[in-house]
């Protein structure tokens, strides 16, 4: 077993994701604790160029294959299983994303490696992998360890500022041939389906007023809409609101929705489950209103009010209008 820390590089439509840099940022801290190198695993088709941005890593292992071009985690899994088997790192970091979530468990079983999910912080202490995890929708913090390692970690978005994983330096790139036959991949990619156009593009808005479960009923939406109107903002939401079809999927912020970075993100009645936080944590200013003091949204918000939205939102709308007038 080596003492290296591996990081899976994630890219979508030719772009590296923020999550990749976050993982590299964490890897940068943990690799010295482990006493090994930080290794970035870049897999894909025609993405070698992306390696240039991975300077935070000591080494980039690049695997090129036709079948790694599409978002088929199984292909990644087969390649990674082989790679990790050969390289035997101390710790492998994967993003809690549509890719990472389809890999970690499989690798854990296939390689007989323990894994920890929902990781918010990671460290290697006395050879053990120690993680701080956010479980139960953010209602509990669990400190867990993989005694002695090695192991895998699924890291929550926002665990580390992405900037910490960015580096100007050019890493060493080693190209590796896949040790497995990817023809055996059982899952076949058929195509991408883009969201229907036409609605407001919430990723381009300066101000978002976002609603969650706390709004209770569709007919309460106008209360929040009124505030959005007063602020000149667009309305966005967490997943439950879209699942109830009160707002179209284009308004969903979070893991399978949009990632937004407005100047102001005003979260109304949103508890702040990790899947949601993933999509908005980088907003310039986050203000949260929720009646539940335990809501994890207050952990990412800059300002918070523990109050009933039906009380505060109309008052706030009024105050904003008065200021405008």
């Amino acid at each position, binding site marked *: 077993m080596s003492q290296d820390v591996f990081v899976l590089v994630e890219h979508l439509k030719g772009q590296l994701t923020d999550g990749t840099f976050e993982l590299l940022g964490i890897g940068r801290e943990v690799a010295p604790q482990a006493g090994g190198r930080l290794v970035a695993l870049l897999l894909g088709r025609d993405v070698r160029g992306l390696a240039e941005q991975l300077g935070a890593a000591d080494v980039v292992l690049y695997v090129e294959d036709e079948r790694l071009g599409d978002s088929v985690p199984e292909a990644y899994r087969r390649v990674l299983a082989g790679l990790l088997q050969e390289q035997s790192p101390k710790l492998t970091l994967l993003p809690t994303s549509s890719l990472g979530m389809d890999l970690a468990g499989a690798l854990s079983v296939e390689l007989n490696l323990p894994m920890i999910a929902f990781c918010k912080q990671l460290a290697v202490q006395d050879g053990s992998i120690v993680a701080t995890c956010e479980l139960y929708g953010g209602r509990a913090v669990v400190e867990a360890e993989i005694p002695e390692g090695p192991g895998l970690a699924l890291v929550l978005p926002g665990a580390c500022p992405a900037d910490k994983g960015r580096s100007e330096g050019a890493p060493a790139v080693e190209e590796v041939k896949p040790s497995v036959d990817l023809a055996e991949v059982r899952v076949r990619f058929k195509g991408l389906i883009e969201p229907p156009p036409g609605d407001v593009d919430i990723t381009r808005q300066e101000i978002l007023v976002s609603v969650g479960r706390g709004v*209770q*009923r*569709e*007919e309460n939406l*106008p209360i929040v809409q009124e505030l959005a109107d007063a602020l000149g903002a667009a309305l966005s939401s967490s997943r439950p609101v879209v699942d*109830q*079809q*009160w707002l179209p999927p284009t308004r969903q912020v979070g893991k399978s929705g949009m990632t937004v970075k407005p100047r102001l993100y005003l979260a109304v009645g949103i508890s702040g489950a990790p899947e949601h936080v993933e999509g908005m944590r980088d907003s310039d200013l986050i203000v949260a209103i929720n*009646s539940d003091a335990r809501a994890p949204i207050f952990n990412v918000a800059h300002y918070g009010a523990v109050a*009933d939205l*039906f*009380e505060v939102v*109309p008052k706030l709308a009024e105050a904003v209008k008065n200021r405008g007038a």
Partner: protein
Amino acid sequence: MVQTASREARGPLTQAFFDRIAAVAEGEKLKACIQCGICSGSCPLGFAMQYPPRRLIASLRAGVMEQVLQSNTPWLCVACYTCTARCPSAVGITDMLFPAMREALLMQGVGVPGELQTALENTFRHGNPLGEPPSKRADWIQEVDVPVTDLSADPREVDILWLVECYPAYHVRAKETVKALARTLHALGADFGVLGQEERCVGDSQRLVGENGLFEMLVEENGKTLDRFQFRQIIVTDPHAYNALKNEYPKYGVNYPVQHYTQYLASRLEELRPMLGELNHTITFHDPCYLGRRNGEYEAPRQLIQAIPGVTFVEMERNRENGLCCGGGGGGMWLDSFAYEYAKERLSEKRVREAARTGADVMAVCCPNDLLRFEDAVKVVGLEGKLVVKDIIELIDEARKG
């Protein structure tokens, strides 16, 4: 038209419906309908129904129900009782027909609006349709400045067991009425207690939306809970709870004397009257369907309002048995978006306009649904600053302090 009304031709939905109708005692009465149409003419949402009640009963008698059950009709009834109160053939449209249709749909899982499912799920899991934690049901006690006995923590014999009900216990606006009532009861020296964490939804609206199993479960649970406490009578904040305890619970052997809080206070009006200071308001009053039309109590609320010195009382054109429903009954609170989609206007919005036409500056109510719906409606129709919605107990509380 050739009708195929044999049992074999019925779809599972229709069959479930007919089974339900056959199972209830009043089911036979449907056949007595004379197709006069007063139900459809009277129904405040009849215009939006694809099968208004008369046509619905005609379809039922012809044995062709499948389309009716799959129409918007079953979910548009707000159980205001107008049709039933006026029906010359005493057909149980509100209590029997609509719940039976809804039950069939619920049983078959067909077309049940999502917001309703959520409310039912919440009631089942948490004992309240809002999905609030049961442990926080009595948290409002911390916010009121008079002592309130939480019998779940301090079980003792009381004179009055007060069932607070869900919206009043949890909803931030409705909670104000609860606090006001607590203060007033205290001022009257009433010996009262609440069930705190042990209280569950009384469930009348769940019954009317067709979730009879859930209602029966709540009756069982509440019956057992009530049995464990010693009290002389029950008072309730919500007319729907009043209706259930008065008319439905006894069918299951849960039988306690119950009053709506307005009735209780009216019975103690002579003690209350000297406490009341002047309020300079012109007040109109909206009769809650389940206190008025369903249970015939029109006077107690009016007596309370008129007992406040300085008040000018005005009636709306539609009052008492002709009062227009707020749209929140019979599960209307949880079918609002559905109803709005077809009606394009909420009954509560019509109603606040009617209230405003009287020239009143306060619209008095005594049902939590009314309070919440009319307050919203006042904003929607732009009557803010002109008309204020207040529960009678808030007016009494204000007058008492003033």
